[in-house]
């Protein structure tokens, strides 16, 4: 097989001892190669494995994505963050057990003693304004700015990881992290709540209770809704992350956007812009607990989030695709 054959027919070479990605036509592993000058070269002390050469690019592989997840979920800092997220549902459950239900608290709290699933919802409601945004801001801001800050970005691009692919993988990992964080809070809250207060049919805000199984589905639906809301923030974070080489600065910027949106949403005089704010529909997840499910705010909420995702992932792509990487 000649070098030219190798170049033109890369497929199916993986099991062929000669099938190396060797454009110069010299064989790396056998030590029989002759240099251009005609000198015989002694067998090489170091060789690559027989099938070390290129395999044809796979159209779809989750390997890089898995590597990204492992980078996020293997990092101690992120473990600490997730542990803090877990602390809230534990606190909610323990406090309710010790002091009993609060008579006039938010809706979820009143119901915890009737059904442990409400502990999950109460914990989510408490974490959604600040803790969950912090977690998503930290991860999304790290996406590009973190790699740029370490200098690993230039090596990833030289591999080449591909800029669009890198952004896609980073965004997918943000979505996975947002859902993992949400589910973690819900699962810890629900499991502990069910242990402490038991389950059974679930009261809904519109009165008619739903079965326990249906209640579980509703809680899962709430988690999906919150994940979508946080994904919108993650998309904003991904874009901010392409603007800077400072992950901390990017994270602060994302938090400022999230909290600024919440604050604006609380100012009645700004009601004209409320529905355009990224956090406006976040707490509407309570509508998913009505019977039947109320869609007058949840559907606009989902649409708003998807539009934010579309705008900011496109902006990130436009910005990062042509950016000079000088870090």
């Amino acid at each position, binding site marked *: 097989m000649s070098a030219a054959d190798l170049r033109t027919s890369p497929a199916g070479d*993986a099991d062929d001892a000669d099938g*190396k*990605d*060797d*454009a*110069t036509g*010299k064989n*790396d592993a056998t030590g029989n*190669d002759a*240099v*251009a000058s005609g000198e015989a*070269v002694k067998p*090489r002390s*170091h*060789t*690559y*494995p027989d*099938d*070390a*050469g*290129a*395999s*044809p*690019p*796979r159209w779809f*592989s989750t*390997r*890089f994505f*898995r*590597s990204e997840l492992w*980078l996020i979920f*293997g*990092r*101690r800092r992120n473990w600490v963050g997730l542990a803090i997220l877990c602390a809230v549902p534990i606190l909610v459950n323990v406090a309710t057990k010790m002091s009993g239900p609060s008579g006039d608290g938010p809706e979820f709290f009143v119901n915890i003693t009737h059904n442990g699933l409400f502990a999950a919802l109460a914990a989510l409601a408490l974490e959604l304004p600040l803790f969950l945004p912090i977690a998503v801001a930290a991860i999304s801001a790290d996406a590009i700015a973190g790699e740029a800050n*370490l*200098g*690993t970005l*230039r*090596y*990833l*691009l*030289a*591999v*080449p*990881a*591909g800029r669009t*692919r*890198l952004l896609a993988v980073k965004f997918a990992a943000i979505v996975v992290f947002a859902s993992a964080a949400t589910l973690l809070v819900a699962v810890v809250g629900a499991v502990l709540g069910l242990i402490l207060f038991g389950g059974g049919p679930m009261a809904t805000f519109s009165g008619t209770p739903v079965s326990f199984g249906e209640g579980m589905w509703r809680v899962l639906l709430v988690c999906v809704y919150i994940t979508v809301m946080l994904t919108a923030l993650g998309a904003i974070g991904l874009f901010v992350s392409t603007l800077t080489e400072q992950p901390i600065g990017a994270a602060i910027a994302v938090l400022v956007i999230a909290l600024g949106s919440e604050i604006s949403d609380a100012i009645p005089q700004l009601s004209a812009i409320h529905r355009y704010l990224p956090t406006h529909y976040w707490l509407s997840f309570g509508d998913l607990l009505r019977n039947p499910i109320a869609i007058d705010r949840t559907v606009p909420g989902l649409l708003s989030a998807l539009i934010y995702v579309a705008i900011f992932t496109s902006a990130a792509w436009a910005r990062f695709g*042509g950016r*000079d*990487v*000088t870090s």
Partner: protein
Amino acid sequence: MTLAIASAGLTKRFRSGQVAVDRIDLAVPHGAVYGFLGPNGSGKTTTIRLLLGLIRPTAGTHQLLDAPMPAAARDVLPRIGALVEGPAFHPYLSGRDNLRRLDAADRTVSPTTTDRRIDAALDRVGLLAAAGKRYRIFSLGMRQRLALAAALLRPRDLLILDEPTNGLDPQGTREVRLLLTDLAAAGTTVVLSTHLLSEVEQVCTHVGVMHLGRLVAQGGLAELRAGGAPRIEVRTTRPDAAGTVLAGLGLTDVDTHTDTVTALLGGVSAEQVAPALVHADVPLSGLRVLAADLEEMFVRLTGEGFDVSG
């Protein structure tokens, strides 16, 4: 002859207005070990970033391994190993996990060979024993070795290495030199950006010299040296007398030391010197022609100044 790297008028002007790379026409032949020289700040690293597509040129084009960049980046970059502006890895991952991460980003390698290729690369740079440690605690030399291992994760046709021996101890420097010689012998084209002229003299076949963003000289090492001005060195106990004779013959830049005299030969042939010295009763214990010194050539091209190019 086709070229492993060819650029035409490659230029990078940063937004600040600074022209970091100014209309350079690189020509790196296949199989060459190309010493890419230049003072700090002369534009070497910016050129490497341009070549790899990390930054976009303001003007000009270039080809890597006969493929147009950046259009063919996806196909051609996997065949290129690079070390750009020092090592950079995730500090909380081990050396091995960092390599695994880079390998995972490469669409064109088989994951079934990853562990073996990582072992082979680590072994080549002498880092196999320490690869399980976190990158955070690596010394500069170990970090440099890990970056080299990353460049060698798979067989490459072209290696672009930015100061690969920076921070290495003398043994490490020697190992890297042997490694590069070994790779070059197997047909890999190597571009070696460095400011260590001895390194260039020992391993390079071709040289390009950058100064203030311009490529001020480029060609075969021997060819460039031949273009330089040879000096003659006279070893004697009467250097002053020898110096007078040399000056009388029309040699310039006469440099007198305690027991040697050197001077630029200029148009004078070396054969004329010995008889003239003997005729003037200058005791002669040695006489040799010094080929143009690479360092001298470098200084001639890039100036004496110690200041970093601005």
